[in-house]
């Protein structure tokens, strides 16, 4: 930009002569030495300066931020100058061999006649689209297109070239693999493979899980972005640490962000110099976060990624004046609290104003094609976690090959069902309990019937009720306060005494039950299989619902593959007992209905003991599924909720942990248990079918590990299924991923 000021100005030659003199005077004034006249000294000085710049502060900061090793060094290129500003038949430009926004096979670029390279890049002059070069200099245009085609073919990828025309002669000054949007990356990979320039395997390797992820997040619209850049609204570029676009009104502190987000209809973007643990509530209340300091492992970056919020960190060009609730950009523009800001967490750009966004189409035909190639490469099956028919539907659209986890508790929390569930828990007599179960049975049956219908013969793994029962009851403190309040009203004759009395009785009964169910550590208490052992009627009802729905499907000539999954097993005997009860119920139902259905019974592996005694557990389980969220908690002995809102970020920053073990599997600890479990389980039961249904099932690094230890499938949220399909293919290719 700096030299653009003058290259653009129409200073007459005489004034330029004068300028050279005054620049030289300035050099003398500052350095007390004359500007080196001898050309060879100029060259020597320049080479030394470029070498030395490798250890300049800017370069070191950049390498630290982007993880480039410090010992690589830089080369120096000495090249004969060619001039794009030498007469009317000269010019300069940049071009890509294809459109790098949408991937279309059409060269794209900008050029200027009578100009030098910086003039095109700096935006000081209005550039012309490359197509116009055809009219301006048809021969040169043809040459350029030919060279670009040649380069793309030779480099086997889309190229980004710089060229200069000097007096009617074309010179190529640079070529490199072009940067591209995720959408373009997918289309280009597919097109190149279809044209047999690269193999399908290479095409799959060239698309990263991050590319696929951007299809799932809102993005800033390219056109809107270009217009914003032209209008000078690009405020800063920082590090792209958490993908997706966020648009909102600026808040400069976490409390204000939270207040604005609660109060207004408009979203908020939190802008801070850096964030700290006490800013997390503000980050969560905001659509996105921008910081002026910090790198890829800064607090803001870690937290944003953890919660899937877009973020740009380390925008050094922004200076925040928190006291006056405003910030200033490098060019002097001032933005205040409440002003609109748009950020692109995928590219690190921050814009003033409200840019247009779009959600990329995950059903994009190129993506669909690429993923079908990935499917042909991978060995791991990809299943989805889905609780309802609509989730299952989406999962299938995204390519899931089964349901690895249907959490039945979510069905119990629905507003019309919760009172029934509560009366079941509060039942004093066998009759009351029976009555509640009879009401729940048809509801559950309908849920499962829907899943079977959507999945049409693909495996459907249904986990029996897992959480501690108190989760279905009102909060104890609230209840206690209500009881106290009602007693006081009764004493003070406030309201209809009969009615108050009745309410009080209900609440007291509820409080009593809550107290009776109270546990010191509910997450390690009576939950999972223990619940089923304690209250067999409940899980019998669930299995009845599953088998009745399955039989009904068979009657309707549908195919079904139900799998009953027992949670939190730690002792082979508890699984043995539970399974006997459940199989008995299943047999009863089939006898009643006179239909036979194959139902599998298996267990989750969520505690270290289960992994260690997998040989014995496998005697009673037809499949295993790793619940790695709980397995991580129980292996580390830390609770996820407390860790992620508390000490985890500190551990990451201090380097005690390299990654969040709840996001990426802890291969050395939790992974060892998994390995042992697979080995021992399959020693008892050859070919035991084993999968994973924690959130790790959608994480590329964790998927690679699952592939390595020989799991049969990963199960993740429906939205992660496309990412998992690609990651599983990469895993099968031995992690040969091409980062472009």
């Amino acid at each position, binding site marked *: 930009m700096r030299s653009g000021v*003058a290259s653009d100005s129409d200073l007459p030659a005489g004034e330029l002569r004068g300028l050279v003199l005054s620049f*030289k005077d300035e*050099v003398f004034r500052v350095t007390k030495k004359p500007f080196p*006249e001898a050309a060879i000294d100029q*060259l020597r000085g*320049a080479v030394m300066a470029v070498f030395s710049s490798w250890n300049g502060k800017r370069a070191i900061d950049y390498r630290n931020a982007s993880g480039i090793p410090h010992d690589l060094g830089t080369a120096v290129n000495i090249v004969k100058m060619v001039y794009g500003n030498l*007469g009317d038949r000269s010019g300069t430009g940049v071009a890509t061999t294809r459109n790098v926004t949408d991937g279309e096979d059409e060269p794209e670029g900008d050029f200027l006649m009578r100009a030098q390279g910086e003039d095109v890049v700096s935006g000081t002059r209005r550039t012309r689209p490359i197509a116009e070069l055809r009219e301006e200099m048809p021969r040169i245009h043809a040459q350029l297109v030919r060279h670009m085609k040649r380069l793309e073919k030779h480099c086997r990828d889309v190229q980004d070239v710089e060229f200069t025309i000097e007096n009617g002669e*074309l010179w190529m000054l640079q070529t490199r693999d072009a940067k591209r949007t995720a959408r373009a990356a997918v289309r280009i990979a597919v097109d190149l493979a279809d044209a047999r320039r690269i193999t399908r395997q290479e095409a799959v390797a060239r698309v990263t899980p991050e590319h696929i992820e951007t299809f799932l997040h809102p993005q800033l619209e390219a056109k809107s972005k270009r217009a914003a850049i032209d209008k000078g609204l690009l405020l800063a570029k920082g590090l792209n640490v958490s993908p997706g676009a966020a648009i909102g009104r600026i808040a400069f502190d976490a409390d204000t962000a939270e207040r604005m987000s609660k109060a207004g209809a408009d979203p908020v973007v939190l802008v801070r110099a850096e964030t700290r643990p006490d800013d997390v509530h503000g980050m969560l209340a905001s659509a996105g976060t921008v910081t002026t300091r910090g790198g890829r492992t800064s607090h803001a970056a870690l937290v944003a990624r953890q919660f899937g919020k877009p973020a740009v960190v380390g925008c050094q060009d922004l200076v925040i004046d928190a006291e006056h609730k405003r910030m200033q950009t490098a060019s002097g523009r001032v933005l205040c609290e409440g002003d609109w800001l748009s950020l692109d967490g995928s590219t690190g750009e921050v814009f003033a104003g409200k840019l247009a966004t779009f959600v990329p189409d995950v059903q994009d035909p190129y993506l669909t094609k690429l993923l079908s190639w990935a499917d042909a490469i991978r060995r791991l099956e990809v299943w989805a976690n889905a609780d309802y028919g609509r989730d299952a539907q989406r999962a299938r659209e995204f390519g899931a090959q089964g349901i690895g986890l249907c959490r039945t508790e979510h069905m119990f929390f629905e507003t019309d069902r919760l009172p029934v569930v509560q009366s079941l828990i509060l039942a004093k007599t066998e009759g009351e309990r029976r009555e509640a179960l009879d009401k729940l049975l048809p509801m559950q049956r309908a849920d499962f019937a829907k899943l079977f219908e959507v999945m049409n013969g693909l495996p459907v793994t249904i986990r029996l009720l897992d959480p501690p029962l108190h989760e279905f009851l009102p909060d104890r403190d609230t209840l206690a306060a209500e009881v106290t309040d009602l007693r006081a009203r009764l004493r003070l004759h406030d309201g209809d005494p009969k009615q108050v009395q009745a309410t009080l009785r209900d609440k007291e009964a509820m409080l009593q039950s809550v107290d009776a169910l109270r546990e010191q550590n509910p997450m390690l208490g009576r939950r999972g299989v223990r619940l089923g052992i304690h209250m067999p009627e409940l899980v019998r009802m669930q299995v009845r619902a599953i088998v009745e729905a399955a039989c009904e499907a068979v009657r309707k000539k549908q195919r079904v593959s139900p799998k009953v999954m027992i949670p939190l097993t730690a002792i082979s005997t508890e699984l043995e007992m539970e399974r006997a009860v459940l199989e008995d119920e299943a047999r009863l139902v089939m006898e009643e209905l006179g239909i036979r259905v194959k139902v599998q019974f298996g267990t989750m592996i969520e505690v270290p003991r289960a992994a260690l005694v997998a040989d014995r557990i496998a005697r009673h389980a037809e499949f295993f599924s790793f619940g790695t969220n709980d397995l991580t908690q129980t292996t580390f002995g830390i609770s996820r909720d407390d860790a992620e809102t508390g000490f985890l970020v500190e551990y990451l920053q201090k380097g005690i942990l390299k990654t969040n073990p709840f996001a990426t599997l802890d291969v050395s600890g939790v992974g060892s248990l998994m390995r042992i479990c697979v080995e021992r389980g399959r020693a008892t039961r050859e070919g035991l079918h084993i999968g994973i249904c924690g959130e790790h099932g959608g994480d590329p690094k964790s998927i690679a590990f699952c592939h390595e230890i020989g799991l049969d499938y990963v199960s993740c949220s429906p939205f992660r299924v496309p990412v998992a399909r690609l990651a599983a293919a990469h895993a099968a290719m031995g992690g040969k991923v091409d980062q472009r």
Partner: protein
Amino acid sequence: MTSQATRILSRASAKRPASTTSASPAKKQRWVYAFGDLPLVIRRVGSWDAVKGLLGGKGANLAEMTRLSLPVPPGFVLTTEACNAFLKNGSQFPDGMWEEALRSLKHLEKKTGLRLGDPQRPLLVSCRSGAKFSMPGMMDTVLDIGLDDAVADGLVRSTGDERFVFDAYRRLVQMYGSVVLGIPSERFEALL
């Protein structure tokens, strides 16, 4: 993964002695390569990735375009190894490095029929950094090297474009001033 890494390493180390014997007279370190030397560089370091490591991304790509016979302005590269040796040597050229660069400059002059600092037929060059990984805006560039008062006047005569020549000249002083001598660019802009 480890076994794969060792395999690659052993292959590379197995190759290195062979290549040094084949180029036995030039046993000493080489710091500078012309764009046209790419086949030699590939023979020396093996993989394309290693070529990029040695010549930097920009240099490797310019050399590659030269090999494809595309119209690339001629030039040469001082390698990343030269950079590291320079920095290790207290930011001074180790013995022989600059002389080697001057020999490459001679070749460039011969090839272009121009000479650095010659007012009749002056060679002007750019000097740009180029690391293995692109570090946008982080490294430095000096353009129009080779201009002085006599060369400028010579160029005005041959191009007939005084504006062009003195615009290039003032860019050189400004870039050299800021990149090499560390004078803040704003001080020049204030004079504009």
